[in-house]
């Protein structure tokens, strides 16, 4: 009995264990994907029609009256490339810099590191989109379970219908609607005051006025994100719960006369929520990327807004940096989802010998 619980004894040699280790393999795969994305973005920027480097050289020549060579050298220092080197050589230099955590300097604000720019904007997006994700996930699970329990009654119909409608409307449309209806028409809040990430009068720090001001500025984007994503969670949870309710072990639990509460939490809720945690982990990755328009609409200075700014300023190094950070987030949250699922659900636990 004891032996069957501990499973068969693993007799593989250590190197085989290492190669076949699922976690390690997933991690290496993720690293490979990140490398592929870095390569893709690098060559995209270099080889696109309307070569950004040339555009920037022309821009410098026109605006600052530099000679071609000066402009070219300046561009080289900011794009971190040796003008005489081939694209492939540049690529390896760039890779080397990235390994040291150096994403180069911003083109338009000379002397500013892209990484420090990103660090300045990133926390706001993480805070704003992250809390919205958490709210819509929890609320969506609750409503989805409710709909599944009362399936095919009016409760379910209303919840499912609203969820479909709410999730169908793009998030930026919600942003505009909120601005027009509650901000401009009903004047529930002053749209101008709620721009930015916090009130400049309250310096950042761990104190109540600052936290309140940060919340006040984030509340509209958060509402928008919740409206834009909650429907998906409701419908996913409803589907998942409905199928769990049909499982034999739930019927048996009922037959055993277990309390409804216990069936709901321990039998149905836990199992139905499983696939949603995977979805949640995947969504965490998209937290950074899915916010450009909403941040623009609310003038919320987060990563999306920074990306848009760098695009409109043709700040290619910043663009490259933000795109990279966003993608890394997705890759590693996908990895997390993979690992999380096998940890949460023993049925799909992948072992080396399969």
């Amino acid at each position, binding site marked *: 009995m004891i032996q069957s619980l501990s499973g068969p004894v693993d007799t593989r040699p250590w190197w085989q264990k290492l190669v076949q280790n699922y976690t390690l393999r997933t991690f290496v795969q993720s690293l490979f*994907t990140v490398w592929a994305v870095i390569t893709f973005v690098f060559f995209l920027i270099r080889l*696109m029609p309307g070569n950004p480097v040339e555009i920037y050289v022309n821009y410098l020549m026109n605006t600052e009256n530099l000679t071609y060579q000066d402009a070219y050298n300046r561009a080289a220092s900011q794009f971190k490339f040796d003008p005489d080197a081939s694209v492939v050589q540049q690529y390896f230099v760039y890779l080397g810099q990235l390994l040291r955590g150096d994403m180069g300097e911003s083109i338009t604000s000379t002397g500013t590191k892209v990484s420090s720019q990103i660090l300045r904007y990133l926390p706001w997006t993480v805070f704003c989109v992250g809390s919205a994700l958490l709210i819509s996930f929890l609320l969506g699970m609750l409503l989805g379970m409710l709909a599944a329990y009362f399936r095919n009654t009016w409760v379910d119909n209303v919840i499912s219908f609203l969820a*479909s409608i709410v999730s169908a409307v793009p998030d*930026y*449309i919600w942003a505009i609607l909120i*601005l*027009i209806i509650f901000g401009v028409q009903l004047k529930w809040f002053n749209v101008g005051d709620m721009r930015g990430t916090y009130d400049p009068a309250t310096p950042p720090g761990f104190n109540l006025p600052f936290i309140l001001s940060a919340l006040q500025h984030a509340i509209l984007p958060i509402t928008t994100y919740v409206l834009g994503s909650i429907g998906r969670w409701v419908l996913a949870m409803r589907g998942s719960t409905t199928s769990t309710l049909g499982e034999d072990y739930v019927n048996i639990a009922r037959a055993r006369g277990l309390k409804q509460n216990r069936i709901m939490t321990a039998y149905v809720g836990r199992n139905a929520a499983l696939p949603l945690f995977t979805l949640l982990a995947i969504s965490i990755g998209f937290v950074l990327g899915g916010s*450009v*328009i909403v941040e623009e609409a609310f003038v919320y200075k987060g990563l999306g807004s920074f990306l848009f700014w760098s695009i409109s300023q043709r700040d290619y190094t910043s663009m490259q940096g933000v*795109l990279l950070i966003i993608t890394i987030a997705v890759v590693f949250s996908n990895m997390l989802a993979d690992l999380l699922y096998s940890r949460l659900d023993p049925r799909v636990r992948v072992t080396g010998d399969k």
Partner: protein
Amino acid sequence: MRTFWPLLWQNKVGLIGFIGLVFYLLLITVFQWMVGFDNEVKLDQINSPPGSRLVLLTRPEDKDSYTKLQDLVGHKVGILEKSGAPTFLEKSNVEGLEVETYRWRSGRGVPESLEALAAGEVDALIIFSKLVRRYVLDPSSRDYKVSLSHLTVSNPKLGPALLLGADTQGRDMFTHVINGGRILIITAIMAGLISTAIAFILGTVAALAGGIVDRILVAIANFIIVIPRFPLLIVLAAMITLNNWLLLATLIGLLAWPALMRAIRAQVLSLRERDYVEAAMALDLSRMHIIFREILPNMMGFVVINFVVAITTAMYDQIGLIFLGMAPINDYTWGVMLYFGRSRGTLFNIDSAAMLLAPVLAIAFFQVCLVLFSRALEEAFDPRLRGAA
């Protein structure tokens, strides 16, 4: 397909979506043909609220001489507008009429214009703005009652009302909303077609070919899927000059296929195990025959549903791009209306709500209809999802 219509009829929510989509189809064909695009700048109706219409004010003795706008040709006409140039005389084209006009704007211009009309400086006064009209004609506002005692409303309903008001250039918003959907919808459908076609072809090829081809295609899909679509799209849109809608549709379509491709690959892999496909393979029927005669019909529902979903994604992407100003804005679409709302600040103007709400609702309702319809399709194609089960 034979069972589809009765099922749709039972599924009231799906029916709403379907009717809505038919309405949009009419919108971009018949309605658009009926309602032309108003591109004429009209100073007297700048930012007019919804329901505004022209009102003609005259002296009592002229009451019967001007019953329609055409009667005013060659006369001196006063125009009272909410905003615009101050008092001056000019030759102008009011609704295509050659007249001499005086213009006043609201505020002090209201009593001035009424006095000018009473004194005979102008023959008739056109009032457009709803707000100004309320000052002049509303019996409860006492301010100008005196002036009105020797003036009369010649024609309270001159021409049709502006259902949705006018934009910052005085153009009829209603015509813009009617006309603003065609290119968006065509682009979205085109992008949906492109991404669905790529997903179908690559998914089927990967599943049927197997081996190294399969691995490479899946790797490409997995690679594209991790780069967040929208940020990449903005970056690409910044580098490529998106000067026509076909290019935009292609770009959106090229980035949207991977998720569907993986799903289709999985479907084909399972279909391949079915007896009838194995029989077809054993009979050595051509690949094309197997794909289009054996496999496609059996996953038609799945493909159609995902085509509809792809349209919503494409719609989201392109309007997002337009809203940010990264896509062509020479066609006056719903997206461009939103873009102008943002870039010209009308978003924050209390009077221009209709200007933005109209396109916003048009977009939102289109997306809702698509999603409701796709859910109905899903239920129709998948019996397990049907309500009664």
